[in-house]
């Protein structure tokens, strides 16, 4: 079982080390460690309160990553996001027991994409990078699992129908193709012309395109290729068929990859990093001040939401409170909750949805009335992340799993 890191130094400079699919230890990157230590010393002199606050440092590194595209800041954040990534993977593995994907596999799949999470995270309204990352990591891992499962039960051609275009593109890029646009067009033509017959067959067993379908695809391809720049050459049946086979191969390879360890600590031997860190980047005091401001704002907002939520929870009826405890504190699945309460699973999900909606409604209306925050989807989603994180923390204080070291 993984133990959470407790001091700011470790949180931003150590990485999960697995041994045989299990958490083994926190492995430091000495260059990050040194850099973090230097930063902590600077801050210490100015304001000791911030010394141990991970929330502040998360904002600080996020802002310097954003402003200077600093790779060192990115690595600090990668170290920081190890925990949400691990918990997300552990959560998926626990809820969907599978031998296909261990906690370590899920972790590797998700953490290798952590920079995408940085790019898409939008700070504001008290939502933290950590909470956003945890749900995004969870989605990445579930996605990965779904695909592994699909790959197992689908024919090559059935599988092609079940990929999103974004996924397909990633597979083609990973396979090193350069004529991506024309391959995607070939795939689109395939999707337009070949599908299961609802009277007879399932998509999972979709057969090789027949000659008639191939002719239709070729006609389509040759007509639509003019929309691409540069215009790819005209294809005949054999050539299109060959192109699609390339796509099939790339997809199969992509979905069952050998997981490589990316973003592992690079400087694991003390002293090795010395030359590097000599030219270490010094951040301007401005970065620091901006982070202080953003952090103060975030904390203030979270304290306020905290009060609103405390009140909202207390005013819920007892069955609803019990439901939340089962789900967030005891970490039961909906099925388990249904068994405990002797109701149907869909009623659990309906009720949970209702409660979550009520909480969001409460906070949204409070925000609108007291802080004049407009009720918009983009704002609501941030507020909702705060609520979700709050619920997890609120109910997991006795539970080692989700003990987030969150400052409020």
């Amino acid at each position, binding site marked *: 079982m993984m133990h959470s890191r407790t001091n700011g130094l470790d949180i931003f400079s150590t990485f999960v080390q697995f041994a045989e699919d299990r958490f083994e230890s926190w492995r430091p990157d000495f260059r990050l460690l040194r850099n973090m230590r230097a930063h902590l010393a600077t801050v210490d002199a100015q304001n000791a309160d911030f010394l141990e606050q991970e929330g502040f440092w998360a904002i600080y590194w996020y802002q310097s990553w954003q402003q200077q595209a600093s790779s060192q800041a990115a690595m600090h954040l990668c170290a920081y996001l190890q925990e949400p990534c691990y918990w997300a993977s552990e959560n998926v593995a626990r*809820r*969907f*027991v*599978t*031998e296909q994907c261990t906690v370590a596999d899920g972790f590797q799949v998700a953490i290798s994409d952590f920079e*995408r*999470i940085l*790019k*898409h995270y939008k700070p504001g309204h008290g939502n933290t990078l950590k909470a956003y990352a945890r*749900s*995004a990591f969870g*989605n990445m891992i*579930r*996605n990965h*699992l*779904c*695909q592994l*499962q*699909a790959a197992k039960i689908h024919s090559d051609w059935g599988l092609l*129908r*079940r*990929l*999103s*275009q*974004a*996924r397909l593109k990633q597979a083609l890029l990973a396979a090193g193709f350069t004529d991506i*646009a024309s391959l*995607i*067009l070939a795939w*689109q033509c395939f999707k*337009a*012309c070949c*599908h*299961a*017959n*609802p*009277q007879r067959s*399932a*998509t*999972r067993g979709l057969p090789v395109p027949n000659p008639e379908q191939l002719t239709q695809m070729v006609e*389509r391809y040759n*007509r*639509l290729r003019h*929309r*691409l720049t540069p215009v790819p050459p005209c294809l005949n049946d054999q050539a299109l068929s060959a192109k699609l086979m390339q796509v099939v191969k790339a997809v199969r390879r992509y979905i069952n990859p050998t997981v490589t360890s990316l973003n592992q600590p690079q400087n694991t031997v003390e002293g090795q990093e010395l030359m590097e860190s000599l030219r270490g980047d010094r951040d301007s005091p401005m970065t620091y001040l901006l982070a202080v401001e953003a952090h103060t704002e975030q904390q203030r907002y979270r304290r306020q939401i905290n009060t609103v939520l405390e009140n909202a929870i207390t005013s819920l009826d007892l069955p609803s409170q019990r439901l939340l405890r089962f789900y967030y504190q005891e970490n039961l*699945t*909906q*099925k388990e909750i249904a068994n405990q309460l002797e109701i149907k699973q869909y009623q*659990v999900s309906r009720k949970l*949805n209702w409660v*979550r*909606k009520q909480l969001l*409604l409460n906070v*949204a209306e409070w925000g609108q009335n007291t802080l004049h925050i407009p*009720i918009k*989807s*983009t704002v*609501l*989603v941030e507020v*909702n992340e705060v609520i979700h994180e709050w619920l997890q923390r609120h109910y997991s204080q006795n539970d080692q799993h989700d003990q987030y070291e969150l400052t409020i």
Partner: protein
Amino acid sequence: MISMSLQFDICAQPVLSLQTNPGLWRHYASVINVDARWRIYIQKIASQALLTWFGEEFGLSAKLWPNGAPLDIWHILHGLPLTLGDKRIVFMVDEAIDTSELRVPKEWIDIPNWRADYYVAANIDLDKQQLLLWGYAPYSMVKNLGAYDVADNTYSLSYLDLIQDFSVFWVAQQLEPSETISMEISSSLPLAQAESLSQRLVNVPEPRLEMPFDQWAVLIRCDRWRQQFYQRRQGHAFPLGLGRWGKQLTERGWQTLDNLIPQAPALALRTESLNKEKRLSDDAFAYSKTILLKTSIADVKLLLAVAVEIQADERRNIELELYPVDDPLLPETVTMTLSLPDSDEQLQTVQAGSRDNYIKIPPFLCPVDELFRVSIQLADAVFQEDFVS
């Protein structure tokens, strides 16, 4: 092995059960274009699940937009538009298993009175009979954050940008002001030009990608043109007019009853009484057409007869009958259905039993210029014809 569905436990992403329906697939057999037929089938199955879900779970009545069965949109375009209260929502139903992106055709974003408040990413799994709603984005997000793909005129949003929690959706659709705008747009395209474009596009695989978007948008936002275009792509120049029957009927295989009687003995017996009852005159007509139903077992020839009588108030009294041609009896279970093509609503269905030598839809009165559809179905074979009274 993974449990049934990975998403089941994430209550934030609703999983709807759906009913695949081979009968519905057969019903759309008349849609000539393969991918259009598939698209229509998928949208139809998904829309049934969605409408039921909105009703049962939330007591909300959602409606398909702009009418109950927008086949004239679906045959050219992907996307399932619903109206919920004062909000319009377009569901993008995808067969993907992964939840990586939302792709929305430009039409749903950039045609002003087509734009929606919300765009929902939905994954359909026909094998498992499930529809997963896994994320959504409001209009401004798709428009401003979406990556625009010129290859297929589509906006796409990464899953990391989508809102993947439907508690947010419920609160938003309840409290957020609507972003849709409805405005009257005068169709600025001259009829002759629309006609020639429609002619040019009738057989191309992806009409929406054949011309500059602005021009295309003018065409398809016009209901009348869009419906005509659908008919045309279906191989019908227009629905058959039953007013004063003329050349277009004979061009499309319809003949006066007399010419056909020798082929259908059962009809010969009936014709006499029909003639007596209707006293065929300038205001009463009876035409028929031989149709061939190719089922997977055999080819079956039948004869469809339509009798029309124009009333003094110009309303039409219409009667439909179906006869066997080569056999004395109709094949058992052959059905004749009267429906409205715009709404897919079935008005009346009759089915042959084991000893019927004809079946009929009883006479009905309808006003002038009413569009109706007659479908004949036997096993997996369907024949359809649209009429205007």
